[in-house]
């Protein structure tokens, strides 16, 4: 393995670790508060979808980023309401929200981009 290849390898590892790090930090906060948040995957999906659609719609990636952050708030609010107020089983609600957001983002993608999808 040449040094250049090694450098590319390390660089892309750090790049790919960034989303995991951000999500992990969020999970750390909720675990510190004692809430098991299994719906992290659903929230990441929502953020990715909202960010992509926001950036595509407004043409500005930074606005897309802001829209991504704002769009996950309702999902997190649902998870919080179910876990804390209704005291439901946190693993069940987490997995349920994962399934829900996977379906919802796929459906929304097909609706918005269906006629243009490559």
């Amino acid at each position, binding site marked *: 393995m040449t040094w250049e290849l090694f450098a590319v390898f390390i660089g892309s590892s750090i790049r790919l670790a960034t989303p995991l790090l951000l999500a992990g930090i969020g999970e750390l906060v909720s675990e510190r508060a004692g809430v098991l948040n*299994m719906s992290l995957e659903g929230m990441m999906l929502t953020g990715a979808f909202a960010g992509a659609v926001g950036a595509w719609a407004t043409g500005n990636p930074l606005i897309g980023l802001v829209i991504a952050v704002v769009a996950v708030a309702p999902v997190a609010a*649902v998870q919080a309401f*179910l876990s804390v107020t*209704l*005291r*439901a*089983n946190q*693993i*069940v*609600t987490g*997995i*349920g*929200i*994962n*399934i*829900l*957001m*996977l*379906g*919802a*983002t*796929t*459906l929304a993608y*097909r*609706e918005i981009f269906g006629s243009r999808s490559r």
Partner: protein
Amino acid sequence: MTVEATLPAAPRARQRWSLLVPVAAVAAAALVGICLIAFTGVSITAAVAAFADGTFGTPYAIAASINRSVVFALVGIGFVLANRANLTNVGGEGQIAVGGIAATAVALYSGVANLPLGLPIIIPMLAATAAGAFWGAIAGILKVKAGTNEVISTLLLSFIAIWMVYWSVQSEALLRRPMTNSATLPESLEIPESTQLPLLTDDYSFPLHIGLPIAIVIAIFVAIVLNRTTFGLKLRAVGLNPVAALRAGIPYGRTVIAALAIAGALGGLAGALMIQGEQYLLKDGFSSGYGFDGLVAGLLARGSVAGVIAASLLFGFLRSGGINMEMVAGVPTALVMVIQGLIVITLAGASFWLDRRAAR
């Protein structure tokens, strides 16, 4: 004056509520689904007709749905059993995967194809059950020896198992079929006909295989074990209070490992049913999320084997209807996932309220 006249009405009302709420949750989710269908611009009658056709329209559809429900039910029953001991087994997908690997390997390469008396069918299933039990026991041993949370260990083990399936069909030294040309797909050879599951009726337009009676027998057996044997009592004791169970002489470590191993074994058996009953060969991603659907069926059942069967039937038919809706009416199958997710969170949210009513 009889005893019945003095009993409070609460027990009967409690039973009515705990049946009513799941039905109401499914109905509400279906309503949201219909609104979403209208939102996508597809005509509702066409979509509902396609859905009904996919679920009940032809005998083939009914048989396929029931075969699917059997897989979900086995994983869900395993989950319920482990849940009795307060262990959450989310690794159903991985247990199906190792079961599939074991069943394919034994069916293809261990020479069982020529044995008499139905052994070619039984031995791969036993191998798959053993593989699944081993996979579940790993998580159990980690929990007992190192205190690892079994949610994490079973989940991560399932990722390992899924990629093991991918690895095993990439290399001809493992399970990949010999590459005759560059277009040979990375999958195993087809398993010999003597190892494929026989159908209940010899009619290929109604391909219901023997997985259904197997699952029914296992469901009855597990229900009896959970409610009427000392092992079931030990599971419940360990689940409610491990320290008190230890003081009472119940071996905590062995019970935990046994519970996760049995849950894994049922998952492995489900994998064998998928390979020997429908797919007949091993390829990457063959478990296609069935483990997670079975897990959700187990979660919704809230501890009862009958609930697992009901939820598995619901999800099996829901999936079939969704596939047909996409083919005929153009509604994306993602809609079915949305409905499933809504059902899960509504039932999870309602369960606390239900448990509070039951406790009163």
